[in-house]
Every structure is written in structure tokens, then in C-alpha cells.
């Protein structure tokens, strides 16, 4: 069916299994066969899980939801790269036509002190939520807004803000970074709001609070390797990190200590 050129693959999977956050994990090897190249990577996992259930073994836990690359839930580190061998996509958008018959695929969870493993390939990314809650917003109560067209925003600024706002919060940047730094994620939100007139009022306070929360969560420090940008499924640019550095320095220089 479909495009009609689907072939069948036999693969060896080495998957990280870990009962819970406290348990010690290890790799488990599974053979899967008859995998159509039209399948998505997660559908291949569905097949494997069906097989495991059939054999009376517990299926592999992995995060996933929308399966169309926008919710940011899926998070597999595949053959040494977050979201697998193709750039610009999430795990759920990765299709098996990117693999060859007989391949061995190693699948691991995101690794970061700030993203503790919950089970198997599932990690806890609530650190991201706490960073946003620390200041990643414009303080405007419902009903306080004026007419939308009263705020003129140059198309270039709106587009640049949108590009930064396209972040799906999947955490691939942290997973890819050799230092497990969250700078790309944090800077995307800081940039979005720094680029727009609506974000100006709280601009300084925002960057100070968000960076401080980021540091508190235990992410590593940015060393500008650019791995985050290269692996980001939404192509969030390193320019955002530079912008945040600038914003942070500016805010530090001009904010009196309370």
C-alpha cells in the first residue's frame, strides 16, 4: 500500500531498559523483522512492544503523543544522536527508510542530571516547565489587552520571534550538548519575547530569572559547539544564545541589586 515501494527490514535493537529512576539500567537486545520502510521509528517500537506483550514481557516505555513532530514529547537518542540520523525532525517523524536491512540501532534516553530517567526511555523534563514559570511570559491578565492591531510589529521582527517561538521543548538540545546545557531552549523563549514590543517591559527581569532558574536546575554550561542547533528539530538558531548572552549582560549591568 501507500507509495508502494516499501521494503522489509530485519534489525537488531539495543534498547536501554531501566525499571525506574532508582534502579540500575542496562541495554537489552531485540531482533525485529518485517519492518516496512514506510513505518515511522515509533511504529517500529509499537511492533516490538506487541511482540514483547505477546511473549509475556513488559513493553518498553517511551514518551510519545502527537506523532507529527509538534508536541515535543518523543525523545529517543538513536545511534548517538537525539531524534536519530536525520536532522530537522523529531523521533516520531523519523521513518524506517532511513535505515538499512541488518542495521544495529542503539536507543538511549536523553542523558542529563536535570532530566532524570523515569523508566526505560522516559525522562522527566519538568525542569523546562520551571524555567518558563520563572519568567517565560508576558504579564498580561485576561481582558487587559488592547486591540491587536494597535501594536505594530515589523514583519521581520514577527518572523524572527516566530522562528524562536517554534521551539517544541523536546530537550534534544540538552541531549545533544556534550555539557547537557539548556541554553538553546532558554534563549529561544528569551529571544521571542525580547524581539517583540510586548516583551519589553519585563525584558531584563525575565532573562535574569530564567537564567538563574536554568542554573539551579543543574544543566551544564554552553561551550558553543553548535550541536544543539544542528540537532534541533525546529532549527532554532544559535543566534538566540548570543542574544540571550547579550540580554543577560545588559540586564546585569543595569539592574541594581535588591
Amino acid at each position: 500500500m501507500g507509495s508502494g515501494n516499501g521494503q522489509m527490514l530485519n534489525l537488531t535493537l539495543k534498547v536501554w531498559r531501566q525499571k525506574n529512576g532508582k534502579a540500575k539500567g542496562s541495554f537489552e537486545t531485540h531482533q525485529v523483522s518485517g519492518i516496512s520502510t514506510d513505518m515511522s521509528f515509533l511504529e517500529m517500537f509499537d511492533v516490538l512492544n506487541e511482540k514483547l506483550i505477546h511473549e509475556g514481557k513488559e513493553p518498553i516505555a517511551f514518551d510519545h503523543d502527537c506523532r507529527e513532530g509538534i508536541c515535543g514529547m518523543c525523545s529517543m537518542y538513536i545511534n548517538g544522536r537525539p531524534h536519530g540520523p536525520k536532522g530537522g525532525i523529531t523521533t516520531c517523524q523519523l521513518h524506517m527508510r532511513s535505515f538499512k536491512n541488518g542495521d544495529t540501532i542503539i536507543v538511549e534516553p536523553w542523558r542529563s542530571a536535570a532530566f532524570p530517567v523515569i523508566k526505560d526511555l522516559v525522562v522527566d523534563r519538568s525542569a523546562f516547565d520551571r524555567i518558563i514559570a520563572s519568567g517565560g511570559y508576558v504579564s498580561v491578565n485576561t481582558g487587559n489587552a488592547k486591540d491587536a492591531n494597535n501594536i505594530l510589529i515589523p514583519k521581520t521582527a514577527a518572523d524572527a520571534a516566530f522562528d524562536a517561538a517554534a521551539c517544541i521543548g523536546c530537550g534534544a538540545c540538552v541531549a545533544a550538548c556534550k555539557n547537557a546545557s539548556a541554553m538553546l531552549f532558554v534563549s529561544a523563549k528569551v529571544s521571542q519575547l525580547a524581539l517583540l514590543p510586548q516583551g519589553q517591559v519585563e525584558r531584563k527581569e525575565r532573562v535574569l530569572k530564567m537564567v538563574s532558574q536554568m542554573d539551579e536546575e543543574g544543566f551544564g554550561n554552553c561551550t558553543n559547539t553548535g550541536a544543539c542547533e544542528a540537532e534541533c528539530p525546529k532549527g532554532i538558531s544559535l543566534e538566540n544564545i548570543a542574544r540571550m548572552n547579550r540580554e543577560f549582560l545588559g540586564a546585569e549591568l543595569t539592574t541594581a541589586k535588591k
Partner: protein
Amino acid sequence: MASSPKLDAKIPEGPLAEKWTKYRSTVPLVNPANKRSLEVIVVGSGLAGGSAAATLAEMGYKVKVFCFQDSARRAHSIAAQGGINAAKNYQNDGDSTYRLFYDTIKGGDYRAREANVHRLAEVSGNIIDQCVAQGVPLAREYGGLLSNRSFGGTQVQRTFYAAGQTGQQLLLGAYSALSRQVGYGSVEMFARHEMLDVVTIDGRARGIIARNLVTGELEKHFGHAVLLCTGGYGNVFYLSTNAMGSNVTAAWKAHKKGAFFGNPCFTQIHPTCIPVSGDHQSKLTLMSESLRNDGRIWVPLKKDDNRKPNEIPEEERDYYLERRYPAFGNLVPRDVASRAAKERCDAGYGVGASKMAVYLDFAANTDRYGKTEANKQGIHNPTKEQIRELGKAVVKEKYGNLFDMYQQITGENPYEVPMRIYPAVHYTMGGLWVDYNLMTTVPGLYALGEANFSDHGANRLGASALMQGLADGYFVIPYTIGVYLSTEVTRMSAEKAKSDSIDKLKTNHPEFEKALSEVKGQIEKFFSIKGTKSVESFHKRLGKIMWDKCGMARNRKGLEEAITEIRALREEFWKDVRVLGDANEFNPDLEKAGRVADFLELGELMCLDALKREESCGGHFREEHQTEEGEAKRDDDNFAYVAAWEFKNVGDWELNKEELKFENIKIAQRSYK
């Protein structure tokens, strides 16, 4: 026909255009000090839940938010692509509140409440203002003003958008407002928690039982009101554009606790989705309706034409939507477009290996854009290739992410060959029955957004789901919840002296314990069955029954068969399902078991509702009721009502009807010709 006495829609008196304004100014209020002692539970963190929770917390209520995802930001509203409608008339093309109201009622095939829809149209503009103020980067023109696009079922440009990620941007706006309240401590956030029951005391909603999905622990949570913002139930079809986790469980548990279910059979099948590629398929991916602005839909004129699309000459193509509906062409509403695609494929004109697809072709408009672009850039006598390349760049800017998504999934390049598309389950207009205040038939229990049945009738227009979710959360519930909570204030002060009052006992009330042990019982039952078949396999089989017999076209025989088959499947499920692992740990298979168990009950009700509605309207197409041209044939004399189903027992419901009165719109045959 008169409405059932059990259903009071509480629609305010007065002229339509003044109802909401007047009502809003006269509803009882809760004073700030009392708000601080009132607790509101919000289940679901999408557009409706996120916006409601943030706004209620801003107002001073104590709010608890629950979502099954790992973060509030991942609710499925995030996947909405095309846009959000608002009657701003920024394009000066004759839009108005009335026109949006009219289009929505007509689009819904005259099966929605006038008062609710008018209110929706009234607040639509405020939503855009609010979102822009939050920093949502909606698309702009070069002059800095907001940009609009067209959507199906309308002839004005009123759709605001952020590339093909409008839902994402709006949700992140609501999520940021919610996060702000979480940061302030006014909202307590419970991610990776699933609501497994509503707790009612003396017939009123008093809280929920939720499972901590990480530890497996069952928790009791008290609330003076419970808001279900849990989305739609399209996943009853197994394959749909919904997220894998989208489910009916919260709404269904509420239904079993006394909330009537409205119009369960009203399902939206979206016309432009990527076709199924094989048995392994786990979900379907939507290609935004906005693509129909520039894509032309066609099939070959000849049956079983196996030529490649680009080899089929213009005169041998059938642009069937443009042929059948010249006024709206490719922009007819979703139900009409879906049925037309099904008709062509069933008649043997389908394309692709499965023959269950039609083409969505951008070539003509790519060339048109290319020519304009060549003029803009001052290129005289451009070559065909130049025009094509320039046009592609324009198309890429408008729909780049959608084209990429298509290519990822199919491996084909839509800039070169037409997309293959086929309808897929997308949205459910049906949901928990609510009154004008968005309250279900259980006092204190509310349903917002897609989880309720209220605003879209039998078919939802594109870009209206985002509008409704945010309208309910930002601008409706904050006012209407006061109607109920002000009575709670009175009750609380009357019961102040009582030592065993609800407010003192809270989750220690025996009803909480009872609900908890029921939930526990179900979980234990799953593990005790120790059957042979996976949860997934049951879900797949249910989906097939639903799609074949309660899908795009329905008939009496099929629906009756479906009911029998679903009952048998349900019985088999409870005898032979295999759930592995442990209750006290992270266990996605167990979560899914609970959801599928509820789908197995809902599916039957959907078929029953479809069977009882002996007419065709919107997304509900009964083959017995069609015009000679194959269009849906409504029966306004007998079916201009909301079917509100009351749960009696599993497999046993009582139908209550709410009559729909059309006082401002002349009910007419819906035509897009």
C-alpha cells in the same frame, strides 16, 4: 417538539446580540476574599484548560491543573495547524460578528445553539487581542499589521495564523499565562497525572481521583468545581489525527457519574490527511486545510488510471469540487469535501497504490505565484523553469513546514508531484452536554473546548476549534462559573458550624474513598484477567468497526451490526486482555487499557446515536437520507434537537432532547454551489 425537562440550557432572555453582554453584567459575582477559599480543578491543559486555569487563577481562585502529558505545553491543541477565526474585519471584506455567527451555524448544518455561537463570535476578537498581548507571534504584513487567510466554508478572510503552527503558538501563549500562575503559586500543576473518576457528593461535583502516572499512586483531590477540558474522542476510531494519548476517559467517567453526553455521533472527518500506508499505521497526519487555498483537488477522469499524475493531461482530470460546488470550489466545508473524496474513491477513481486517495495539486498556483514574483522582481520573459522556481519559493514560505512533513512521511516531494490525500477522523463535535454556563448536568461539573458539544453543531468549520477552546477558557467560564460558585459561598457560610461539612472533610469524605476503591478495583481487574491479547489489538479492532460502520457514511444495517460487534468485543476485552507490569509504577500499557475500556463503551453510544438520528447533517451522513445529487438531507421537523444521552448502565442509555430554536437565522438547505 419540546425539550426534555432534565435539560435546561439556561439561555438568557432578550435579543440575540444583547444576551451575552447583558448576562455577563448581571451574573452573580464572587468577591475577591471568597475566591481565595474556592478551589477549582481543571483537567486538561490545552487551549481551553490552560486559558481557563490561568484566568481563574488571575481572578484569585485556587486552581489545580491536571494533564496526562509530561508538561502542560504538550496538550494536543499544539498540533492545530491552520489558524484561528475572529470577526475583526481587518481585511474590510464585510466580516462582522453576525457573519461569523451565521457561517458557524450554517457550517454546523443548523445543529448548534444560536446563543452559544453568537457569544463565540462576539468574543472572537478579544481572543486575538489577548494572544497578541501575550507575545504570540501571529503572522504580519509588511506594514506591521496582522495578516489573514481564507478557510473553508467562508467567503471572507478572517483566519489569523502563525505559519502552519497556529495551535502551537496559541497554546504556548496559554501555557505561558498558566506557567506565570504556577510560578506565583496560584496554580498547582499536576503533570503526568490522569483523572480516573469524578467524585460527586449529593449529586454535585466535589473533586476527582487521579493517578500519578509516574508512581502509580491514586490521589484524591477536592474542588468546589471541576472543569473538564479534556478534548475530543476521535481516537475511538483508532486511526485519527489526534495524539496517541487523546482519550475520552475523563468525559466518560463524568458521563457515568451523571453528565449527559451530547450528539456523540457528530464526528468530523477531515478531508486533507495523508493516506494510510499500511497495517502498521498508528496515527494519521493532517495536512492543514489552509492548503486548499492554493491546492486544487482532482482525480483522473478515467477509472483505474495508472499513469503518474504529471503525465495526466489537464483535460483528463476531474476537479470534482470545482465542478460540483462552483461558488466555494476547493474551499467547501470539511464534511462536504470529505464525502466528495470518498464518493470518487468508492466509484473507482482513487489514486495511489491503495486507490484510496485523491490528488491535492499545487502546480497551477505555483506557476501563478511564479509569474507574479517574476513581475515583482522585474524579470521579463521568464522561462517556464524560472517561473516554477520562483513560485516554489512562495509556496515554501506559506506552507514549507507542511510540505516537509508530507515528504518525511511519504518520501515523496510535493513540490514536484501532487500530494495524495484522503479524509481522516479529526475532531468530535459531540461531547458532554453543557448549558449556556458550560455546566454539565452534574452541578459544579463543567466541560470546555472540544470536550463539550456546544458550538459546532454537526460540522465544525476550519479554524474554529482554537477559537472555541480559547473563548471558553478566557472569556466565558471566568464569568459563568460565578453563577455556581456564588451559591457555594452561601452554602459554605451556612455550613460553617457543621463539623462534618464538605469543606472541612474535603477528601476525607467517604465518597472520595468509595470512588478511589472503584478506580482501584478496575486497575486490579486489568491485571487479574491475564488474557492473551494486547490492549492495542482491541483498540485496532474497535477502530475498524467504527470506521467501517460509523464513519463517513452510515446506514441502519451497518450501525446495528456495529452495536452487536462492539458489545461482543467489549466482552472479549474483559475476558482476554493482557496487561503487563505493575500498578505501582509508570505503566503506559495500563493507562491505555483504561482508555480503551472507555472507548469500548463510547463506541456503542456513538452508533446508537447515529442510528437514532434518521437524517443526514454535517459530518453525520446516513446513506438512507440524501438528495438525488448525493448531498446530505436534513430533517428539521424531527431532528432539530441535541441528543443528550443519559447513562443508565453499560450498554443502556436514555435519550433526552434539547430542542434547537432558530430565531435569528432562517433554517435552510445548506448549499455551497
